[in-house]
């Protein structure tokens, strides 16, 4: 089932000359885990916000083409209506704290109260979101007393508690230490396996390669490629788009190792291990 259909999407922010998104078209199936990569200002965040309707509703500006999410035309649907289907986690955790709640537990309830979710349903949803992100022990803390990493987990949990069909995450692990960011990726993967459609912008290519079903490469507002991580990261023109392949792929490239079945470079630690350990010059 097509969960997201984007056709010929063009967008320009008000008071700017260049298109932030230029003729972008793609389709995403339910339950897919999609990674979005590209250099800074390539249009990744703009695309995220276009899936949520913040582009064009919040910013205005010039908009062309169409974005359809779960059958709803985004340009003709209000953000608060889309919020029932799509969740968006931003990069900066501090500005995602609502500021009106005294505890982490209540902070997670904020979105649910706005949606009018019955009280009895709220609590299990909040508790499972907190457990998934590993923040149960902070339930009674003031949201602003959390560290950057903990706040980032809370921001993700706050959106997950709203139980969207689609979750869009814009560099959600920037403040986390290595193991923390691994835990968050695993949590998101668990949701994806339960059928949630995941779209994630991230500069950590090793994680994108390991967790994504497909990778979208953007540059100057255009969609350059949208394919499996192996295919995208085996392109020989990545440098031109300001991207470096995952370290494991670069090692295999240095050694001239390709996966025999596909002729592509291995991307993940496990795949690279299988090939490297048996490698002889």
């Amino acid at each position, binding site marked *: 089932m097509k969960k997201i259909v984007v056709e010929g999407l063009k967008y320009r922010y008000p008071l700017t000359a260049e298109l932030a998104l230029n003729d972008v078209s793609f389709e995403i199936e339910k339950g897919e885990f999609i990674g979005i990569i590209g250099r800074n200002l390539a249009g990744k965040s703009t695309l995220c916000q276009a899936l949520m309707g913040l582009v064009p509703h*919040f910013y205005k500006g010039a908009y062309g083409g169409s974005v359809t999410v779960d059958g709803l035309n985004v340009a003709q649907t*209000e*953000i*608060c209506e889309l919020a029932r289907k799509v969740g968006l986690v931003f990069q900066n955790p501090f500005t995602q704290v609502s500021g009106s709640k005294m505890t982490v537990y209540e902070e997670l309830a904020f979105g649910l109260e706005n949606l009018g979710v019955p*009280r009895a349903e709220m609590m299990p949803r909040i508790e499972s979101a907190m457990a998934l992100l590993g923040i149960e022990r902070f339930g009674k803390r003031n949201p602003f007393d959390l560290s950057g990493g903990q706040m980032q987990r809370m921001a993700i949990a706050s959106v997950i508690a*709203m139980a969207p069909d689609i979750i869009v995450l814009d560099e959600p692990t920037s403040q986390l230490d290595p193991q923390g960011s691994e835990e968050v990726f695993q949590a998101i993967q668990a949701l994806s396996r339960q059928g949630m459609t995941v779209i994630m912008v991230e500069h950590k290519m090793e994680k994108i390669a390991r967790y994504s079903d497909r990778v979208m490469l953007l540059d100057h507002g255009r969609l350059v490629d949208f394919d499996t991580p192996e295919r995208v990261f085996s392109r020989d023109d990545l440098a031109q788009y300001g991207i470096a392949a995952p370290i494991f792929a670069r090692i295999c490239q240095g050694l001239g190792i390709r996966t025999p079945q596909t002729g592509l470079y291995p991307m993940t630690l496990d795949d690279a291990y299988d090939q490297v350990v048996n490698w002889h010059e």
Partner: protein
Amino acid sequence: MKALSLYQDNGTLIHRVDPISKLLYIAAAIFIPVVLTGFTAGLAMLGLSLMLLVLARVLRKVVPLIGFSMLVLISVVIIQGLFYAGNRQVMFALGGVHFYREGLLFSAAICVRVLNILCAFALLVLTTRPSDLIESLVRQGLSPHFGYVLSSVLQIIPQMTGTMETITDAQRSRGMETEGSLMVRLRAFLPLIGPVVMNSLVSTRERSLALEVRAFSSRAQKTFLNEERVSTSNRVIKIVLLAAMAAAVAWRVVS
């Protein structure tokens, strides 16, 4: 983090009384002495408030508030005692300065009234979480947007002081003196306020995006995580308070 709130989490019986009842109590504490005039009613209300503050174990927090208002009240007593327009009868003299009975009585009435209001408000502020108070008001029909503004101000202002500290650190790290003479402090103003303004512009926009994502503008009937406290005792409290106010009016009319 220091939230902008005087709330004391003691979990006493008084804490469990719903915020609307406490608001009603403030109304009664102001209304009844005004209607009944004279000292007795005001002193009685003040006594009651103090007793409730003791029950809520927050009396210690009220002392500095009373202490601060005392500074003002003492000056009122002195000024009225000396210069009240209706002053006739000298009550006592201090080093040749005469204090008059009428002025002192008048100022004593003001003192009782001020302390009375202060204690009644303290009862609300010290024993109610600000977010609970605002939530109750939203339930009673206050616009959720206005409610949000009220409660977020309480948290985001302390948050801004945190940002201010970071910015101060960043500029001191670049060799800027922030302490010393007035001139030094004035010179430090722009490098501090510039980033504060830019930061708050940026974060206000980001926060409003984040609020939209969390369905802040939704027109769905809002629900609440915390249960509304509709216990019989809360209803009884409200009825008693309303009845007391009505009785005061009746007493005034009859007598």
